[in-house]
């Protein structure tokens, strides 16, 4: 009975989400757009950190690269969907390369390497003027998305594409984590030596997770480029890595619905604090410190803990 209600709720929600562009104005749609693409980013992070236990501090590298690739391809008049595909492919290749090189290292060194790679990409983005236009940023020409979305307005096209991709990602991840591969990833997270001892090759799976997460992160960055039509080197900075990490931590690391909550909360907060202007980042930093220190298991994780405790007490009485 509960299952049917859940399904009905999800169906209704989906219908609302798809109909959204026709119900509201451009500004609110922009916020919903942000939530969708950050949701995708958070899902990638969740796969990487929440399910496989890989702590990378350089995800912004993938995000920014995805943004640049998509932007560049769109400027070459490619269909939106192809531009995103290009971003994902590059993201996967980058993930494979970096992953194979560095995942065998100790965790602290790995973290520094991922940071180093994204920083290096940022330096390249700042200086490779002919391609990236440097600190001024790359303007992205709007093109058609493909997929017969052509009859809608640009913003609506991007939005609907984002909905489709977000749902696909979600379903894909859910399937992955329920599959045999998914269980192996989780076992690597919980105890790599143990996984190793039962004959699994942890590095191979970690590289797989890293490359997949890289591709999905690049997808998110690409959507960002599409939606807001500007790409700057800042996208490759630690700031954007932190956003990804925070979303997963707040939403709940390793939880299926965690990324959605994390993205909603992040975008919500961002919008809510917009009125404060530049002070926003200071407040944001303060909130980040407090959340990370007071809710180390994330908001969802802590909620789960508390509800479990209440359940236990109820069982005892």
């Amino acid at each position: 009975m509960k299952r049917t209600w859940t399904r009905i709720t999800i169906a209704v929600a989906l219908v609302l989400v798809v109909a959204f562009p026709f119900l509201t104005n451009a500004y609110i749609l922009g916020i919903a757009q942000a939530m969708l693409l950050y949701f995708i980013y958070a899902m990638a992070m969740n796969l990487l950190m929440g399910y496989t236990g890989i702590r990378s501090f350089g995800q912004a590298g993938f995000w920014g690269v995805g943004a640049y690739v998509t932007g560049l391809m769109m400027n070459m008049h490619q269909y939106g969907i192809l531009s995103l595909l290009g971003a994902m492919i590059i993201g996967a290749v980058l993930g494979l390369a970096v992953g194979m090189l560095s995942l065998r290292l100790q965790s602290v060194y790995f973290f520094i390497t991922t940071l180093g790679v994204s920083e290096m990409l940022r330096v390249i983005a700042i200086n490779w003027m002919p391609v990236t236009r440097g600190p001024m940023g790359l303007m992205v020409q709007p093109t058609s998305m493909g997929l017969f979305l052509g009859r809608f307005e640009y913003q609506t096209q991007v939005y609907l594409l984002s909905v489709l991709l977000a749902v696909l990602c979600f379903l894909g991840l859910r399937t992955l984590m329920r599959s045999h591969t998914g269980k192996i990833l989780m076992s690597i997270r919980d105890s790599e030596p143990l996984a190793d001892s039962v004959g699994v090759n942890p590095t191979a799976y970690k590289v797989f997770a890293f490359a997949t997460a890289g591709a999905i992160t690049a997808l998110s960055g690409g959507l960002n480029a599409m939606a807001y039509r500007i790409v700057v080197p800042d996208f490759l900075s630690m700031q954007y890595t932190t956003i990804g990490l925070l979303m997963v931590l707040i939403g709940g690391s390793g939880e299926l619905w965690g990324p959605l909550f994390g993205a909603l909360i992040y975008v919500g907060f961002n919008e809510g604090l917009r009125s404060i202007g530049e002070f926003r980042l200071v407040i944001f930093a303060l909130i980040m410190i407090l959340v990370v220190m007071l809710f180390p298991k994330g908001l969802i994780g802590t909620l789960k803990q508390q509800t479990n405790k209440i359940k236990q007490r109820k069982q005892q009485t």
Partner: protein
Amino acid sequence: MDIVLQQAANGLVLGMSYALVATGLTLVFGVLRMMNLSHGELYMLGAYILSALMQYLGLPYVVGCVLSVLLVALIGYFFGMTVVQPASHLEPINAMLATFGVSTLLSNLVLLIFKATPRMVSSPFQVVFQIGPVFLTIQKLIVVGMGLLLNLGVYLVIHHTTFGKMIWAISEQRTAAEIVGIDTKRMHNLAFTMGAVLAAISGVLVSALYSLAPNMGSGIMTKCFAIVVLGGLGSIPGAIIGGLLLGLAESLFTIIIPSQWTPAIAFVLLIVLLILKPEGLIGKSKGVKL
């Protein structure tokens, strides 16, 4: 050839400023076993507080330096106690996010207060003189001199004073340090403050050489990561040598490639090194060689 010598000299100066900050970072890592991502901001604050003291209070350079270092030590101690020390018990990712929060907090506060326009600090030691084909300023000599003195000083303190050995012991074997009765919590805070002082001194000395920007903290941090890995996590000699090497490399490379690309050198070196020798040049992978 002249230009090579000049750049080598500049590189040593630059490298020494890196080494100071990197030593502080590696010291904190050795003792607390975590990366303090706000360490670079202590360097930046050293420079900015000095600039503010000189500009708004009219204090002379040397007085400003001393005061600034003291203030940054206090700020460092404060954040060490409230954020870094408690965070060291969390999972590493949370700990790093917490310190990154402090970093963002400080750099954005400075950005708000001082805006992003580059500032300069003038010191009375900027007289230029020449040794052979190389042009130097007394300020640069002071940087190198102080750097050597401090780094040496830290090394001597750790290896030859009881207090220093306690820090050394904690970084070697924390449980055993607890067992012999060392107050590890207090030592953490002290080591942290030492690191802050080192970073602040570097910032204060270097502020007369280059212009200040609110993001100079994160700029030097990313380089210090490379240095600390090059030299081995937790190794002070490694941080010193790594810092000097990086400074030299960056300065010498500007002879052949445009200077905006120099930040990339640190990472290229880092990546190459990690592929070839994952434990760093000097330090061991897990153990600490303070």
